[in-house]
Every structure is written in structure tokens, then in C-alpha cells.
């Protein structure tokens, strides 16, 4: 089992959800975060005084999937969410040791 941590621009969330549905990801967790990577922040003026925002609103979507599903999702995301601009986002992949469905107590792949 892998956890994919997919960080994207908020306006891409619907597209990402469509991809995950298509790939049969069993569930997801959505987090509104602030972040920055290669796309650095910007400066704003509030009442004429500078107001630095090097943080940009991003959405972090986490999904735990079987190993084989993982590559499938990564492929589609790179293909479809990509706009070619800084700030398109990243995916981080982690190993998941176990999963538990609270309702039933099932463990491992069963629990996804």
C-alpha cells in the first residue's frame, strides 16, 4: 500500500477528484494548506504598506491505494493536471504499513 500526497492548486481539485474516481482510489483526504515550492509568493500592498505573502493557498489530497494503482494515478495526474507553469504541484509517495477500517476492524488491503 502506498500513500500519495498530491499538492495542487485549489482550482484543480475537481479535475483531480475525477482522476482519482476513474482510478478507483477508495477514499481521499483533502487539506487546505499554504505552501510554496518553485513558485515563490508575491507581495501585496495593504493600505500602501507591504504585506508579504510568500505562501500560496494549495490543496493537499492524500489517498492510500494499492501499489499498482499508485503508478496509474501518478501518470494521469502528470498528464492532466499539468499546465506547464510553476506551481502545478507535486506528488510525494510513502509506504503505508497497514490500514484499518474502523467499522469492521478489517486490516490491510481489505480495509482500503
Amino acid at each position: 500500500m502506498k500513500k500519495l500526497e498530491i499538492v495542487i492548486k485549489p482550482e484543480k481539485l475537481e479535475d483531480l477528484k475525477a482522476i482519482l474516481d476513474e482510478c478507483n482510489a477508495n477514499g481521499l483526504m483533502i487539506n487546505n494548506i499554504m505552501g510554496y515550492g518553485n513558485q515563490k509568493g508575491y507581495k501585496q500592498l495593504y493600505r500602501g504598506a507591504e504585506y508579504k505573502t510568500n505562501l500560496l493557498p494549495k490543496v493537499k489530497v492524500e489517498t492510500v491505494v494499492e501499489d499498482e494503482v499508485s503508478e496509474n494515478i501518478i501518470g494521469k495526474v502528470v498528464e492532466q493536471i499539468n499546465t506547464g507553469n510553476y506551481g502545478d504541484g507535486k506528488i510525494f509517495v510513502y509506504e503505508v504499513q497497514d490500514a484499518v477500517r474502523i467499522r469492521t476492524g478489517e486490516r490491510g488491503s481489505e480495509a482500503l
Partner: protein
Amino acid sequence: MDTQLLLNIMWTFLGATLVYFMQAGFAMVEAGFTRAKNSGNIIMKNMMDFVLGSIFFFLIGFGVMFGNDFNGIIGTSGFLNPTTLADAEGMINVGAWDGYTGLPIGVFLIFHTVFCATAATIVSGAMAERTKFSAYLVYSAAISVFIYPVTGHWIWGGGWLSQLGFHDFAGSTAVHMVGGICAFIGAKILGPRIGKYNADGSANGIPGHNIPIGALGVFILWFGWFGFNCGSTVEATTTIGDIAMTTNLAAAASTLVALIVTWIKYGKPDVSMTLNGSLAGLVAITAGCDAVSNYSALAIGAIAGVVVVFAIDFIDKVVKVDDPVGAVGVHGCCGLLGTILTGVFSPDVSVVTQLIGVGSVLVYVTILAIIIFTLINKTIGLRVNKEEEVDGLDLHEHGAPAYANFNLHRDR
């Protein structure tokens, strides 16, 4: 000192003050029923509507509306200095409506300024969340010069409709329908917000971000409407309470009926639509609040409560014009409706005259609004670009968020 005159002045001033406060109501309704990322912008549009309305109506609009009449069509004097329209005692006397007793020009000016600005501000809600700020400012000045005062002259400035006996006591047509039509044309030319319509043409709901302040706006508007309707006597009369009663009963009936209609239609009583219902009743009774009985007011309100829900639905889902706050349904449709119903329910008002009145105003305002919005669209451009709209107008047009300390999440 003539106490009756002082009473009239105080009364008219009180009305003007309450109508001014309706600006706050509109600002809260429009901000509350749209998304958080555009709140600063919508509030600025409301504010600038009033600001530009005050200035341009003073400079030009008042002369167009109350200057020397040219063939019943337009006023032609008092430009740049409307106080020249007063007589030697400083009184204006345009004989605008029956039993009109004359007032010092100052109080008359402020009273009509706030009415003009009300018509202007209706539009911002329908065009919310995607209109370029600079373009909006131009529109806002234009309505105060080219649209509102002209039909205002016809109806209240001694023009042909007032001569014909058209009855629009406090402005269902003169203010609300005029604003509502401009709102419709503006929203139509502008196109819908990104994400409002699906590929198959079905409409998505885009929930407003702050229902409590939206509701506060409705309470403020209802409060201000007592000034709008009762103040439109522009003199202290014994009928003030009667007008307050018809106004209040129509609004109550409309709210209740809209609640019930949404309950049946959607399975649950819809909050923001019910609040639209309150405004619908207020708009509808405005034309005839002095001329109909309490029961007729209940009836007018009840009809408006049904119509507003179906009208908003129709505009949203069939006509597919994206009006985030329902301004067209409330002000346009119920303004028209209320004016006609005044003819139906009041024995002294002719339905035919009412139909002529709303028809002619409809045509004039539609044409002018199309011209103005098209011109703006071709020159400055009406709409912000995609990125600005997605990120929110506050960020790009003003550089600062409206809710800096809150974690917001994006809706669709």
C-alpha cells in the same frame, strides 16, 4: 415659521436617511450571498455606486429628471447647478405628483439622490464576482445620467407617464425595475461565472459565504423601506401609518409564501431564497403602497412570493443568465409585477396605464442598458480574466483579502 413645512422637511429628510441606509443593506446582501474571495470588491462596488450616483445625479441627473420639461420626455435645465431649479424662496415645485406641496431644494435633492443610488446599486449583485472594477465604475456613472433620470422624469418629474396617471408611488418601476433590467442586461452580456453551468447546461448552486450578514442586509433593507415607501409622501400626512402597514404586510406575506414555495419545490425551506422573498414583497408593494388595502397588500405580497422563486429559477436554469443574488428576479420581475398589480388592486389606477408605463420603461431601459454595457465591453472590457476570477477579485483588483485571518476553502 410654517410648521407644516418644517414637518414636511423633517419627514422627507427622515425618509432620505432611511433610504440611504439601504445602501448598507444592499452591500451586506450582495457580499453575504456571494463568495468570500470577492467580498472586498463587491463592497467597493456598492460604495462607489452611491458615491458616483451622488455626484453625477447632482451634476446632471437631477436636471434631466426635474429640469424644465421638454415634451414630457426629458428635463432640460439645472445642469451642473441643480439649486437653480428652486424658486425665490428656495423651494422646488415641479408639481411631480398630486398634492405635492413643495419643499426646499436641498431636502428634495438629497431625497432623490438616495433613490437614484438605489437603482444603481441593484446591478452590482447580478454582475458580482466577475466584473472588472473600472468598467463597473463607468456603468455606475452612466445609469445615474442616462437611464434612471430619464424614466424618472417620465414618472416623477412631470413627464408623459405622470401626465397619463401612471401610478408608481415609491418606485417599483422607477427604481427597482429600472435597476433590475440593467442588472439583467449586464449579467447577460457578462456571461456566467466560471463553474456556474455544467457542460450539459445544468446549473450549479454556488453558496453565498456569509448568510448572517446577508440576512442582516435584508433586515436593514426592510427597515430602510419604511423610509422608502412612507417617506415618498414627501410631506407629513395622516396616511403614513397606512403605508407602513401595507408595506409590512406585503413583505411578511411574500416571505412566508416564498418560504413555503421553496419548501415544497426543493424539499427544504431555502434560507437565501426566503430572504429574497422578503425583498420581493417590498419591491412589489412599492408602487401601490399608498393605494391598496391591507388585504390587497397581503395578496400582492403573496403573489410576489410565488413569482420571485419561479422567476429566479427560470432565469437561472432556463434563460441561463447567472445572477448570483437574484437581483433580476427580485427587483426586475417583482418591480414590474407590483406596478401592474397596483392597477389590479386599486380602483383608482388603470391597469392599461400601468402596462403602458412598465412597457415603455422596459423598452427604454433595455435599449440604453444594451448600448452602455456593449460600449463598455468593447472599450474597457466588462470582465476580468480567468485567473483573476478564479483567484478572486479581491486579490487581483484590490491586492488584499477580505478575511485575512480566516482559513478559507475554495468552492467549485
